[in-house]
């Protein structure tokens, strides 16, 4: 049976043909280890890696040397969060964080870091006020997702960044759901943007980015060979090599470069408007269904919709949709805090998330299938 993919918040699929081509070609063309020698194979790979680094940096308004390649957004967030905050200090995270933020924070709390949770309010001004109340002189770090991976709600990160800047507090943004759909730049005021390469940037899995404004030097949680300062046992002190121990994912980076080029060529305005149109169509189509619950408090959203239907456990509904040919994710989407805030524990919600490749025709098919479930039950 043909499967229609609406789980792009987990990872985008399909990828643009240019990404597949770049990956295939990289396996053949870039056999050397970048930054690990002076021979042509190594230099050739290093040139490609640097060209993608430049492209990624430009995408976020950063310098290439402050743009590190990672494995995924979780990896980036762990490097950034654990690189900043120390036992005895205090940090603030939002109530809608993914486990990529919540779990490192929880682990740090067991090492003596005090973690406070700022509630995402009904309005942006309420959210900003909640953060403001918690950010005091003893806070060394604030982390907030740019957009919820459950509801798609966009958070007022510029305003939160402003509070952090005035208070001299480091601000890390989880850009996993927003990057590639809405513009996110260091000039918005954050010190670090952590993001996945395989979601809105349309790169392959196994790619992520940590983008810094260069104001904070991160303590490391992984040390090793960087191709630089090799005569010292102390980890390399400068970016990006400081955070890039071990051989880079050259093939993935080539694919990520093609993904960023794709987003640049199509344009985020088009991507956002196309996906918003589809999520708007989906919302219109399901909002009249009996016993539908849509989690949509807020002002601005990326095109992700979380819902539950007729008291059916979300995993069961997602299973039924999969049997009908629709790939949507049920459960908690690795976001315990978010579901606790939404009151959707323990069963979570079903998440609809289109991509630039999704079609209105497929959204209508999904709506009709949900209508059928409403009529006939599971």
């Amino acid at each position: 049976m043909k499967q229609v993919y609406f789980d792009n918040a987990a990872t985008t699929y399909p990828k643009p043909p240019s990404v597949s081509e770049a990956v295939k070609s990289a396996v053949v063309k870039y056999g050397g280890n970048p930054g690990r020698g002076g021979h042509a194979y190594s230099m050739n790979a290093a040139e490609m890696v640097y060209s993608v680094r430049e492209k990624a940096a430009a995408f976020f308004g950063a310098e290439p040397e402050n743009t590190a390649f990672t494995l995924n957004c979780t990896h980036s967030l762990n490097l950034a969060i654990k690189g900043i905050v120390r036992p005895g200090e205090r940090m603030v995270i939002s109530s809608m964080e993914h486990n990529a933020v919540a779990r490192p924070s929880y682990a740090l709390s067991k090492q003596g870091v005090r973690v406070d949770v700022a509630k995402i309010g009904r309005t942006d001004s309420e959210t900003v006020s909640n953060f403001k109340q918690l950010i005091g002189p003893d806070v060394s770090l604030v982390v907030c997702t740019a957009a919820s991976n459950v509801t798609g709600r966009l958070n007022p990160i510029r305003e939160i960044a402003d509070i952090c800047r005035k208070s001299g507090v480091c601000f890390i943004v989880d850009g996993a759901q927003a990057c590639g759909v809405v513009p996110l730049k260091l000039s918005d005021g954050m010190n670090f943007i952590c993001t996945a390469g395989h979601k809105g940037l349309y790169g392959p899995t196994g790619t992520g980015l940590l983008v810094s404004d260069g104001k904070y030097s991160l303590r490391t949680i992984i040390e090793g060979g960087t191709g630089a300062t090799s005569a010292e046992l102390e980890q390399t002190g400068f970016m990006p090599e400081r955070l890039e121990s071990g051989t880079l994912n050259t093939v993935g980076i080539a694919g990520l470069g093609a993904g960023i080029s794709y987003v640049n060529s199509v344009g985020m305005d088009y991507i956002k408007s196309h996906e918003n149109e589809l999520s708007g169509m989906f919302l219109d189509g399901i909002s009249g269904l009996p016993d539908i619950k849509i989690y949509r408090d807020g002002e601005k959203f990326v095109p992700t919709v979380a819902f539950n239907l007729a008291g059916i456990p979300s995993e069961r509904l997602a299973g039924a949709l999969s049997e009908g040919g629709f790939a949507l994710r049920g459960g908690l989407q690795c976001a315990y805090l978010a579901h606790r805030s939404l009151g959707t524990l323990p069963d979570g919600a079903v998440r609809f998330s289109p991509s630039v490749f999704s079609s209105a025709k497929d959204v209508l098919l999904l709506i009709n299938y949900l209508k059928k479930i409403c009529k006939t039950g599971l």
Partner: protein
Amino acid sequence: MTYTLISVSSVTYAMKSKTVLNNLGHYCEIERQEKNSRTGCGYLIRIKDDPSVIVPILERNGIRVRERKTVER
């Protein structure tokens, strides 16, 4: 022929140096440093243009210059 070898600390800085200098019309090449510095392996920018012009350009662009050597051949 005179040229200068400018040592930078990593391949990223070497690549950035090449991009910055090429964009300003200063042709250069990257090569592996044959003799390691105190801190270990690194890369060199080989350039014919005046180092008193080149080094400040690199430094303005945040590139760490470790050392430089002018070679006459």
